[in-house]
């Protein structure tokens, strides 16, 4: 065989090789673009804010923070891993087609992800968490297993029943939140408890730290997962829907959106409605 023939054969092998999910890659690109653009805006805004503060020309008092933070999910690293385009290569992801995926959490979750939402967003699926970010704005849906209530100092809150209902009722009772009544719902065929929350106007910046966010940013911690913390920031609306799983503890479907944009959580609901769990 000549090297020319070898080149032809090797090229055919390369071209015939299975590739990533193109639709997922396209979604990932839109999400990455949105996030980078937002990061740039935040950097500019932050630089301007610093300049103002240094100049002593502004007093922020208890003002609301800009919507600069977004959930990154519990992570042990402060450096988010770029979103993989080849989600079907991921050991924790099984692609079923029609934008439907099975994520290998301890209780596998099947997710039909609507157009406009990313697949395997953020740090990607782990054995206890998976996210989908909207490509049209800073909002998305995060599924977390083994959730417990977090204290204001970003530790495990004491005295909160380790059940879905206990978690949701505890959350609804936080004095710094405006909360809807707790109600029974179903998510993915599971009986669950739901509450919608946002920070009360003019509350002070959060006293805790949330995982995966810059060290200087503070939050109101809400969820604790083996030491990883997520929470709520000003300018955020969030739906927390929780159910009890025999194998995964309290499972929380967290639909979140920044900017108080009307209809944002309603849009997220399409992604929430795509969730289902085995046996449900």
């Amino acid at each position: 065989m000549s090297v020319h023939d070898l080149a032809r054969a090797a090229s055919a092998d390369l071209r015939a090789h299975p590739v990533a999910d193109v639709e997922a890659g396209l979604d990932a690109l839109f999400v990455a673009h949105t996030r980078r653009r937002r990061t740039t805006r935040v950097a500019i805004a932050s630089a301007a804010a610093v300049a103002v503060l240094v100049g002593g020309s502004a007093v922020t008092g208890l003002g609301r923070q800009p919507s600069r933070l977004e959930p990154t999910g519990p992570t042990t690293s402060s450096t988010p891993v770029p979103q993989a385009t080849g989600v079907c290569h991921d050991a924790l992801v099984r692609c079923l087609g029609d934008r439907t995926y099975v994520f290998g959490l301890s209780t596998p979750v099947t997710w039909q992800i609507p157009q406009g939402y990313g697949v395997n967003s953020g740090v990607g699926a782990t054995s206890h968490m998976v996210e989908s970010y909207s490509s049209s704005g800073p909002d998305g849906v995060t599924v977390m297993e083994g959730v417990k209530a977090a204290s204001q100092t970003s530790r495990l809150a004491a005295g909160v029943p380790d059940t879905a209902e206990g978690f949701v009722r505890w959350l609804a009772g936080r004095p710094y939140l405006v909360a809807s009544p707790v109600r029974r719902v179903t998510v993915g065929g599971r009986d669950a408890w739901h509450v919608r929350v946002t920070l009360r106007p003019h509350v002070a910046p959060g006293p805790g730290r949330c995982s995966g966010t810059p060290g200087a940013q503070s939050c109101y911690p809400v969820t604790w997962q083996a030491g990883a913390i997520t929470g709520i920031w000003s300018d955020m609306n969030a739906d927390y829907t929780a159910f009890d799983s025999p194998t995964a503890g309290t499972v929380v479907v967290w639909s979140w959106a920044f900017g108080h944009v009307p209809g944002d959580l309603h849009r997220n609901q399409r992604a929430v409605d795509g969730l289902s769990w085995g046996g449900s």
Partner: protein
Amino acid sequence: MTKPFRKRASAVLQLVDEQPSAAALGRSAPSPTNEVEGFDAFYRREYPRLLVLARGLIGPAGAEDLAQEAMLVAYRRWDHIAWLDSPVGYVRGICLNKAHSTTRRLFTEGRALQRYAVRPAARVDALDPDSERYWAEVRRLPPRQAQATVLYYALDLPVAEVAATLGCAEGSVKSHLSRARATLALRLGHTEEPS
């Protein structure tokens, strides 16, 4: 994690081994209606080919990131790129430049390692051993020879298109290909001439 999650689904898109349109190859002028292609359609058609190019240039680790980065650059500048005679040629050029950059290589390797650290079971499907060895040797060639080889063989582009992408004369491309074949024949123990 259990084994089923390591399996690829049958629904994953396969690379379509058909000839790109003349417009995609940049061999035609913009359409008479002055309409340009939307980025979505461009991405769906060209991403698999760009991934082939990326994999040929830097190997499996980081190839997807490289292809996606090139597409992201294209998306940000699409208002401009869409009106070029050959948007795909432009994006291939981005891919070549990024692959050629040592910084980029280190970055992609670092990112790949980072991803594997988070996803220890992440799997990159291997090519046939002979193919892997061939492409590994191609990547050891001088950059211009490697680029010409990947464009000519992996993407099956005509010499004129390779020359347009590399911004050089067709004669230079033929020279790069000839030198590359000679080197590869020596290293791989094959004859240089087609059988």
